[in-house]
């Protein structure tokens, strides 16, 4: 229903978006509406601010050198300075940069900050000198903008200028100056000037009293730009007690996939603080490098649980075939040690199992099968879990074998997995097991497995026929299990079989047949249930049949009239308040004048008057006003009999809506 509503809304919205815009909402307009010459003339005219701003925006796309002097003339204009830059920043050619530079000595405030920024965007190397002069400007916004712009230009000259001014600048400017140096370092490194870049990062690294973000960025840059030659710095930083620098080192390591970095992280692991150790473990897991496995194995075996869990997850995340061996080894020990869910090691074992279940590939499949074949029940249980979660249909013969295991936990677990993995091909084997078993718990497991297979594969017939066939040779308790499967599956042939079982002299079989009918998925069983409710002498059977009948009617796809007819039949049988409430609930699903008439007598029944009142209101709210006569009778009765304030209020509200008189 929700989906249908969405589709409707989406369709309406689509239609709206595709339709011409409403008068009050201007339609989208093209990006460019005029030629460059026309746009320049707009700027030279006495057009208003909006027209000139639009002209600038379009000149950003089509403007040329002829537009430059006109735009530059607007840079001092408080209203249009930004839009002039908007156009100028993207105009190609050599005319823009000198024009912008020439404004550096003329402008101030926001206009100057903007032009400085534009020179940075355009990476004008000739602007280094005038921008360097602005680093000393007493307006922090101007000095900071100059530092960032110089950083974007990124030449050695720009870097030198910022570097020279850094020590003297006011503290609030320091972050922007460092930002400028970072940008320079990045450009220099990209242009192969690695030594210059390293020098800058080292300068930044050596600064005192700078924000932590600068310390972190400087260390990260120093390590990454040095490449292999920076391994010493990474190693040193991993051992720091300073969490800012440690985090920066980890980020640097993430950028370097070299195996040597894995080895370094692994080697450092035993020496780290616990809070740093877990971060390195996670980093090792993300590298996909088998060299991380030995130290991770060590961490998975000893120490605080949180570290062991992280190590196990990291081993699995590595995804290497050797990860499987490591996890199997861990699991081998744990399956011996862990006997119950209360065991402190249970969570660890569970994590190892999760890891093995989540590693794709043949090695893990083989490991899962090995566990399944183990002589130890605990290990077989692990194997069943693994082959199930790994969706290994190849393991079905092994699972069927485990379904006959001497250990009841193994049997139950195996049957559950057969139900999730099996196909019609497993049905015969399951029935065969069922006909050989006598354990009550196994019957449940077998019935569930058969039902699961059928429902999942959508092939009830593949089960119905062999079950009916097996029925002949089954013991009463086996028949009961088979009947529960038939009850979940439904179908004409199954119904015939269940009807037959109803007449079985064995009370266990008879009761199972009735339970099967009450669970029936199709309306076809309704007449049988109604008949039982009418005729049985057993009150327990009558209750079961009654509840089953009402449920089937409510859940069926029958027409409202047909449902009303059947519920009216149930109403004649309903004697207890709970049964009447069931009928009323069903009637509440049917918004018709007829259903309201069936409800009305219950308004005089003190045992269910409140429920009947609520249902009468519910129906009347959904009912077309043409039924106002019936609604009036019912709701007036509600006002007289019911006590529940919400029901009374809702009844009055509906009557007011329909202008019905209160009698």
């Amino acid at each position, binding site marked *: 229903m929700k*989906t249908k509503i*969405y589709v409707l809304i*989406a369709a309406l919205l*689509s239609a709206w*978006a*595709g339709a011409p815009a409403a008068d009050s909402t201007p339609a*989208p*307009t093209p990006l460019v509406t005029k030629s460059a010459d026309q746009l320049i003339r707009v700027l030279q005219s006495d057009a208003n601010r*909006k027209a000139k*701003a*639009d002209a600038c*925006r379009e000149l*950003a796309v*089509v403007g040329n050198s002829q537009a430059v002097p006109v735009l530059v003339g607007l840079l001092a204009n408080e209203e249009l300075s*930004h839009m002039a830059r908007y156009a100028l*920043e*993207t*105009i*190609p050619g050599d005319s823009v940069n000198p024009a912008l530079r020439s404004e550096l000595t003329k402008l101030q405030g*926001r206009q100057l*900050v*903007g032009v400085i920024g534009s020179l940075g*965007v355009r990476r004008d190397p000739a602007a280094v000198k005038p921008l360097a002069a602005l680093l000393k400007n007493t307006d922090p916004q101007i000095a900071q*903008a100059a530092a*960032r712009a110089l950083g974007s230009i990124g030449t050695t000259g720009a870097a030198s200028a910022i570097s020279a001014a850094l020590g003297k600048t006011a*503290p609030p400017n*320091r*972050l922007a100056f460092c*930002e400028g140096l*970072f940008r320079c370092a990045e450009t220099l490194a990209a242009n192969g000037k690695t030594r210059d870049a390293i020098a800058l990062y080292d300068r930044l690294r050596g600064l005192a009293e*700078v*924000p*932590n*973000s600068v310390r*972190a*960025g400087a260390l*990260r*840059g120093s390590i990454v730009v040095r490449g292999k030659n920076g391994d010493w710095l990474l190693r040193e930083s991993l051992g720091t*007690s*300073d*969490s*800012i620098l440690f*985090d*920066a080192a980890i980020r640097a390591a993430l950028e370097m996939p070299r195996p040597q970095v894995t080895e370094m992280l692994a080697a450092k692991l035993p020496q780290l603080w*616990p809070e740093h150790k*877990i*971060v390195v473990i*996670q*980093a090792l897991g*993300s590298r996909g490098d088998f060299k991380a496995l030995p130290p991770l194995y060590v961490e998975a075996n000893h120490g*605080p*649980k*949180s570290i062991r869990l992280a190590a196990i*997850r990291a081993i699995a995340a590595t995804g290497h075939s050797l990860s499987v061996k490591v996890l199997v080894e861990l699991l081998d020990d744990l399956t011996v040690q862990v006997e119950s869910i209360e065991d402190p090691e249970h969570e660890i074992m569970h994590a190892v199992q*999760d890891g093995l*279940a*989540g*590693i*794709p590939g043949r090695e893990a499949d083989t490991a899962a099968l090995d566990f399944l074949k183990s002589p130890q029940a605990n290990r077989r249980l692990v194997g069943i879990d693994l082959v199930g979660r790994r969706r290994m249909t190849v393991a079905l013969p092994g699972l069927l074998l485990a379904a006959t295991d001497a250990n009841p936990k193994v049997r139950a677990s195996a049957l559950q997995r057969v139900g999730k993995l099996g196909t019609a091909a497993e049905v015969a084997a399951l029935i065969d097991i069922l006909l050989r078993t006598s354990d009550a718990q196994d019957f449940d497991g077998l019935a569930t497995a058969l039902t699961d297979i059928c429902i999942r594969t*959508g092939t009830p017939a593949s089960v119905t026929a062999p079950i009916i066939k097996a029925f002949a040779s089954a013991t009463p308790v086996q028949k009961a299990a088979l009947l529960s499967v038939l009850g979940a599956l439904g179908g004409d042939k199954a119904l015939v079989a269940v009807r037959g079982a109803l007449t079985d002299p064995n009370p266990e079989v008879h009761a199972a047949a009735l339970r099967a009918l009450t669970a029936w998925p199709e309306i076809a069983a309704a007449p049988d249930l109604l008949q039982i409710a009418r005729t049985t002498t057993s009150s327990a059977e009558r209750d079961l049949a009654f509840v089953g009948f009402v449920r089937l009617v409510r859940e069926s796809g029958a027409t409202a009239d047909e449902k009303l007819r059947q519920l009216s039949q149930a109403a004649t049988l309903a004697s207890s308040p709970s049964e009447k409430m069931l009928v009323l609930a069903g009637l509440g699903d049917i918004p018709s004048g007829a259903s309201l008439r069936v409800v009305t007598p219950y308004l005089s029944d003190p045992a269910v008057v409140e429920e009947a009142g609520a249902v009468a209101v519910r129906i009347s709210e959904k009912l077309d006003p043409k039924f106002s006569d019936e609604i009036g009778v019912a709701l007036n009765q509600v006002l007289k009999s019911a006590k529940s304030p919400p029901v009374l209020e809702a009844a009055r509200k509906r009557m007011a809506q329909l202008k019905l008189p209160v009698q």
Partner: protein
Amino acid sequence: MKRILRRTFLKRTFTAATGLAVAPTIIPASALGLGGKVAPSERIVLGGIGIGNRGRDDLRALLPERDVQFVAVCDPQKSRREIVKQLVDETYGNTDCALYTDLREFLAERTDIDAVLSATGDRWHALAAIWAMRAGKDIYSEKPSSMTIAEGRAVLETAKRYGRVYQTGTQRLSEANHVYAIELARTGRLGHVHTAYAHIAPWDAAEMRHDWLPGETEPPKEESSWDLWLGPCPWRPYNPEYTRGGWRGHYDFHTSCIGEWGAHTFAQAQAGLGLLHTCPVHYEYVNNISGDGMVTRFANGTKMILSRGDKYWHGSCGERFVGSEGWAGAADGYRKTEASSAVLLADFDKVVLEYQTRTQRAMSHTRNFLDCVKSRQLPVANAEVMHRSMSAVHAANICMWLKRDLNYDPVKEEFVGDAEANRLRSRAMRAPFII
């Protein structure tokens, strides 16, 4: 050697560097064996920027996390600030949530904040992220996360530069239904995947409005600062409609119907194609208002096709992969991933478990962000993922605006042989709101 824990370190550095912004980082509480309890000193201290309706959804996901302490919100609109404060204070049973109007003051003063949630309108996402990361904050930034290709590049560079954790709000990358569809495509279960469909929003158009709403008297600055609201965008007269969501559809503020959902679905499609490190190289113009049906092609020939409406989905924000052996897709409102055959759907739990095992990622976008704040790993929707998928959004928009096919070089990040398209890769930012 004496350990320097986060708060101790913070205090010391702050004292030494009076007047400077200092930014702490996190020591993972889980490493301390604290189980379900997280000591106040070890919580991720979180702040908010521009939190409206969508942001409050994010906030409601973050507030219950036991290792989060939300302490302050910054918004130029007083009414929005106060709604967030009420929500936070009611959650914590105190009145501690602090209020800020100007992002620059907020970032400079709140050196105690580790990470921020940013949920402004499109126009502020990139700049807020850059400023926050420069100030040492990790950031969860709502989408669409950039207004231009240049902004996206600047976000990516800043995240790398300062080693910050950045997650964009493409939360479907952390939802099992989408992850399953993505993994079916990525692992070859659909055979050779030749096409991905990406859903675009059913409202608005690709072409944008350039009109101004009628100017009205600006409210007092303490109620709503129009200058701050506009931020880096071109000035226009105040009209309250913009601040109530009416900014959508305007060229200066919005990334069009393509960006509205494409910010999500392009990333979803590219994830399944294994192409999150790049973006399409070719964009075919379609003569309609929305870009519906636009075929984009990656360098390896794989197509990503923009699609509007219910041709491929019966929900919203969907992706669909079509391979030689079947199709699979997901969208909001799906109970489960959908595929061309039941066989393809059988391995749902297994495939999602394999994904989680391999990536160590939670099936919760906000949780994934918090985990990465602690582990320093890259979140699922990291800055590179954002920049590459948003580059495709911007290129598709530019294709529609110029009404011609475009070729794009994702390495040089420039259009091939189209000077006008290249001039649309960036927009001058209004001072002083510049990168």
